[in-house]
């Protein structure tokens, strides 16, 4: 019986102690009509060996294609030490650190994580994570509505060049509270948000303005100008940031005159494997004044009875287990283990390591784009500065091209036609620091071939 440590003898002793004849008697209170039959749609159990064989086959079906796609999840290198330590039983199989004295490992680690996130984003405080980038934006929106004392509005300005799934998920998560996300269109030339387009909203009341840096098209926004405009209009600023980009870009806390009020985004680029989309984690940082409106776990440093330094979950009165229906959020379990990995990842790489990965990704994508654009019928969609993603316009159907390139074992990029039909045949490409010159050249010749064929 896998994972059950009882012998027949022990079972009998235990039943005797309870005073019943058989285990099934313990379910005696359950109405007979509710007893389940055989679970015939569940296969019979496999041994660990059979399971490993099965999953090796399943994995082989998917292969290991070359990844030139980002769109919110990035193929960065993670040092081997990161997950070897993260999966130590003491981190891997612990619960949320409710019993502080028996959880100082996790608690100190989260405190270190919070410290790393604040220096990276330039914000005052960080929590211990929310679910992912999309949910971090939703929580930031909810938080901004609670926190903005200058505005009574439940409307949020959200540029169309913010990750479309983030926008959609945020809508799902906030609409129950009658919060409205108001679109701002991007500039057709640059793909970015121009001050001109903001002018149309002047005088209206918004709880917050969202800025994604770099935006979903991979381009850099004029964050200073937008931040100042928002603050001048009594709106808070929510920065959706790529934390790896933060290592070389101006951190959210320094945007404009006063800095963003909330920084959120997805922590995936900092040590989480792509893993089909998760587990990643949502970043949630803010200015000190807003900390009591922040959702999720927060760890604080304190002392024990003998004055020795130690760490605890703090400000718990914000949370659902205390405040119940009046909590800042319903979040309970977060993405702890990925935070653990991320903290170790940042410790091993340090700022220099992150900067190296960020700038090499920037340069690799630039090189890819340059080589692509040398092909007839391929050009950059926008006149803008890219971090490590760029929108490319094709003269052939994007979907067909992407499909054709799978033959060369390449994921060619993200087809934008569904989310941005107005762009025509366009794909969003990305070459992280992991892509070699050889692989970039492979991409370019596969693209040349594909364009000839479709």
């Amino acid at each position, binding site marked *: 019986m896998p994972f059950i440590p009882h012998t027949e003898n022990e079972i009998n002793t235990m039943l005797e102690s309870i005073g019943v004849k058989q285990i099934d008697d313990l379910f005696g209170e359950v109405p007979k009509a509710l007893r389940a039959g055989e679970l015939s749609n569940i296969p019979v159990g496999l041994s660990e060996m059979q399971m490993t064989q099965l*999953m090796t086959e399943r994995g082989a079906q998917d292969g290991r294609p070359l990844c030139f796609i980002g769109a919110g999840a990035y193929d960065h290198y993670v040092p081997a030490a990161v997950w070897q330590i993260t999966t130590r039983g003491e981190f891997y199989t612990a619960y949320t650190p409710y019993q502080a004295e028996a959880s100082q490992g996790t608690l100190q680690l989260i405190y270190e994580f919070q410290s790393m996130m604040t220096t990276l984003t330039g914000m005052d405080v960080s929590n211990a994570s929310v679910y992912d980038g999309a949910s971090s934006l939703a929580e930031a929106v909810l938080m901004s509505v609670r926190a903005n004392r200058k505005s009574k509005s439940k409307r949020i300005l959200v540029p169309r060049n913010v990750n479309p799934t983030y926008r959609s998920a945020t809508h799902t998560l906030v609409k129950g509270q009658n919060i409205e996300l108001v679109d701002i269109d991007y500039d057709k030339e640059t793909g970015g948000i121009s001050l001109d387009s903001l002018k149309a909203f002047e005088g209206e009341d918004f709880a917050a303005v969202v800025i994604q840096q770099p935006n979903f098209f991979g381009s850099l926004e004029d964050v200073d100008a937008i931040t100042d405009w928002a603050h001048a209009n009594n709106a808070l600023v929510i920065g959706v940031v790529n934390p790896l980009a933060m290592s070389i870009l101006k951190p959210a806390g320094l945007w404009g005159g006063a800095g963003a009020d909330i920084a959120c985004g997805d922590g995936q680029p900092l040590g989480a494997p792509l893993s089909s989309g998760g587990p990643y984690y949502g970043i949630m940082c803010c200015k000190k004044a807003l900390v009591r409106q922040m959702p999720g776990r927060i760890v604080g440093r304190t002392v024990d009875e003998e004055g020795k330094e130690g760490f605890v979950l703090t400000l718990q009165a914000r949370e659902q287990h205390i405040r119940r229906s009046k909590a800042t959020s319903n979040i309970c379990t977060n993405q702890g*283990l990925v935070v653990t990995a991320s903290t170790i990842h940042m410790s091993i790489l340090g700022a*220099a390591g992150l900067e190296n990965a960020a700038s090499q990704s920037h340069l690799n994508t630039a090189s890819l784009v340059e080589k692509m654009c040398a092909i007839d019928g391929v050009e950059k969609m926008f006149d803008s500065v890219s971090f490590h993603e760029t929108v490319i316009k094709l003269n052939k159907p994007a979907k067909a091209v992407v499909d054709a390139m799978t033959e060369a074992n390449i994921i060619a990029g993200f087809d934008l036609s569904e989310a941005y039909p107005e762009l025509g045949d366009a794909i969003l490409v990305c070459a992280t620091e992991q892509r070699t010159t050889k692989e970039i050249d492979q991409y370019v010749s596969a693209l040349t071939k594909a364009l000839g064929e479709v």
Partner: protein
Amino acid sequence: MLIFEHSKVGLHKKNDAQLTAIPASMRRGESAALPEVSELQAVRHYTRLSTKNFSIDTHFYPLGSCTMKYNPRVANSIALMPEFAARHPLAPEKFSQGFLSCMYELQEMLCEVTGMKGFSLAPMAGAQGEFAGIAMIRAYHDANGDHERREILVPDAAHGTNPATATMCGYTVKEIPTLADGDVNIEALAAAIGPQTAGLMLTNPSTLGVFERQIQKIAKMIHEAGGLLYYDGANLNAILGKIRPGDMGFDVIHSNLHKTFATPHGGGGPGSGAIGVSERLIPFMPIAGVIKDKESFRWANKSDYAHSIGHLSAFFGNPGVLIRAYVYMRLLGREGMTRVSEFSTLNANYMMAEMKKAGFEAAIPDRFASHEFIITLKKQAKELHVTAMDFAKRLLDLGYHAPTTYFPLLVPECLLIEPTETESKEDLDGFIKAMVQIQQEAENDTQLVTTAPHTMPVKRLDEVRAARQLDLSWTVTQTTG
């Protein structure tokens, strides 16, 4: 010592990459103040730090409502296989059949074991599953033009995420009292139900560790009033394979895969709160599910769900967790499911019986426990001034993680004890022995207990100071100053 305190400025070297394409005004001035340490220093720091944790792999961890069972190591190694770990979420379907087939089968198995008609793996934890469920209930009423239903009923024993979720979905919460025997107060419930009722959230067995015997009646009452039933599946471990929420009449449920299906809790997550629905809620399911077309698998799109509540996450929940749950379910198989509930129930009832014999007071003494049970230490608190928290802390000294304390809120000085099916009799007996020892200490050497723990890396921590003098991150000035 913090990792920052090992840091030495100047240790790490930057490549001299040319970032001339990025205007200086958009670039960062100073580098982030991350630690600069060698790989050995980082490895040593975090290896040592890890040993300051209790965990399933090192300790019996009978945390009630949390199902701290063994997390099979093979699930970890499979999830980290490069084909799964390096798979991009937006990979074309050609590179996805292996992964998608696992997710599809996981959906199917969850349907079968819960008696639901459709399953979505998108929610990233129990609370997000609750959100998705209540959002679907709201979308359902909305689709029926039934806009006046603004209230969600929640028993007072419910987990905090239940009322918090209802609020997040724009509902008001009405609490329903519980009887001394642990069942819902049906009269109070009847009085609370009305045309404003959108639905009821229920855990069964409840967080009091007993099975709600009136469940069929309750379901009928809610349904007849036009409401829907939500099942908080945090306690699914108690009934797995023996009783199916779908058969009890629930319209929507979530299952904490990080509990019942043995994925690790990781010191705070990640989890998965996969949700199952009855037939009528299928059109409302969140994006994205996996659909089987003949022999191949594809992602569901909006047209598959007429009234989808939409996305919950950027991609597809937490696939790394889902792979682990899939592996676990296939290892157990059909026959293993029932074993889970049987042995978790056996363990809980054995512990309760033995602890009662040892003189402890069970909160609900005359019923069978489910997979967990509650001990109340109100007598000890009153007579010896030793609280449930004191017992909890002293247990740490004796090598046992503390049970859940002070939850559910309605039982005074309570310990909610959930041993799970993967713990051996040897360990259950050890825990009981430790409790008896603490009881004796409480009587004879009270201070030993009230000032515990004594053997942990720190003694009891000053939580008030932590909340008042907020110190939430390290800054350089702290060491130089």
